[in-house]
C-alpha cells in the first residue's frame, strides 16, 4: 500500500465510504427548508452510518489486504518504533484538541445566531400586535 496514492484496500475503501457518508450527511441536513426535518434526516443517516465504524476498525483484521494490522493495541506493546509512536500520539492529541476548539467556536456562533433569530421574531411579533 505504501508508495501508492490509492489502492482498493479494505481500510482505505471503508474510510472512503465514511467520507461519502459525511458528504451525504452535510447535503441531507441542508436539503430541507424546515431545519428540524433536515436535522432529523441527518440523525437517521448518522445512526445508519455508525455501522461503518466497526467495519473500519476491524477491516485490517477481517480482510487480508494491503494495510497492516493494528500497530497499537490495548493488550500488547505497540509494534511501532518510539521515534514514530510519540509524534503520532502528540499529533493525535493536538488534532483532537484543535477539533474540539473548532466545534466550540462553531457552537458559540450558532447559539448567538439562534439568539438573533429569536430577538428578530419577538420584535416582529411585537410590531404585528401594535399594528
Amino acid at each position, binding site marked *: 500500500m505504501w508508495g501508492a496514492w490509492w489502492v482498493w484496500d479494505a481500510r482505505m475503501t471503508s474510510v472512503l465510504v465514511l467520507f461519502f457518508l459525511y458528504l451525504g450527511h452535510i447535503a441531507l441536513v441542508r436539503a430541507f427548508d424546515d431545519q428540524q426535518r433536515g436535522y432529523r434526516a441527518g440523525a437517521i443517516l448518522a445512526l445508519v452510518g455508525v455501522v461503518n465504524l466497526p467495519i473500519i476498525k476491524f477491516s485490517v483484521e477481517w480482510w487480508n489486504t494491503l494495510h497492516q494490522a493494528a500497530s497499537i493495541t490495548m493488550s500488547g506493546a505497540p509494534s511501532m518504533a518510539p521515534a514514530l509512536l510519540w509524534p503520532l500520539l502528540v499529533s493525535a492529541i493536538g488534532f483532537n484538541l*484543535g477539533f474540539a476548539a473548532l466545534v466550540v467556536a462553531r457552537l458559540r456562533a450558532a447559539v448567538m445566531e439562534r439568539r*438573533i433569530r429569536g430577538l*428578530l421574531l419577538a420584535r416582529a411579533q411585537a410590531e404585528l400586535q401594535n399594528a
Partner: protein
Amino acid sequence: MNHLPYIVAAYALTFVVTASFAIQAWLRTAQATRRLAELDPRVSVRPGVAK
C-alpha cells in the same frame, strides 16, 4: 519514487481546510456579535467576555 508532492499537497490541504473552518467560525461570531449588539444593547456580547 519521490513522495514529496503528495506530502506537501496533504499538509497544504489540511492547513487550508482547517484554517477556512477557523476563519469561518470567527467571522460568524464577529457578525453575530455586532448584530446582537444592535438588536439588544443590554446584552453583553463581546467575544470572550462572560456576561
